[in-house]
């Protein structure tokens, strides 16, 4: 069964304190891995797509990496505005061509204190 597990469930950082969020996945063939940010009361906001092991993507203070079993979202020198829930999702090759059937993890709730 395809599955996505994120850790930790919650993470509190001081402003400027770098850290990493983990996304472990089990899928019968990975079509793509996606990172989203979700603010309270809002929908998920797209951050990155990763397709193959070794791939890396960067955006401002965020960097996503991918191995054959997990992905990391590295946050460098975070600011309070980075506080949000970060969601990881995968699309399995066992589904059809549409990317719509994303399997989400429960997310990591990040709090960054000034």
């Amino acid at each position, binding site marked *: 069964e395809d599955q996505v597990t994120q850790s930790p469930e919650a993470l509190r950082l001081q402003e400027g304190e770098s850290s990493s969020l983990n996304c472990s996945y089990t899928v019968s063939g990975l079509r793509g891995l996606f990172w*989203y940010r979700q603010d309270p009361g809002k929908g998920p906001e797209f951050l990155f797509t990763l397709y193959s092991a070794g791939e890396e993507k960067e955006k401002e203070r965020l960097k996503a990496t991918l191995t054959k079993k997990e992905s990391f979202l590295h946050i460098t020198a975070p600011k309070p505005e980075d506080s949000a829930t970060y*969601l990881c999702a995968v699309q399995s090759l066992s589904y059809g*061509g549409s990317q*719509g059937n*994303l*399997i*989400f993890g429960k997310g990591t709730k990040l709090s960054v204190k000034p």
Partner: protein
Amino acid sequence: EPEVTQTPSHQVTQMGQEVILRCVPISNHLYFYWYRQILGQKVEFLVSFYNNEISEKSEIFDDQFSVERPDGSNFTLKIRSTKLEDSAMYFCASSLGARGNSPLHFGNGTRLTVT
């Protein structure tokens, strides 16, 4: 920046009633989706829609659910006879293409409360 809009933001209904959740996807997008998130749980896929027909659906999307694109701008999710367990946040999403290089853009959701 264009965005997906959903109405209403909060819907309260009684068990057994029909509800229609409405979405206006981004105007040039071709693929449309509904997801739901029960409080404290994962975001779950319900259905994808392309070229006026369902392209994929999950086990959750049973005969109680239906989707429609009644005109060139709206995309709706209908729940025929609501149950208590249908209480959740429902997210509409759209994408330009079908692949990962065309990411899903989500709306801010409709919180459905079934009493």
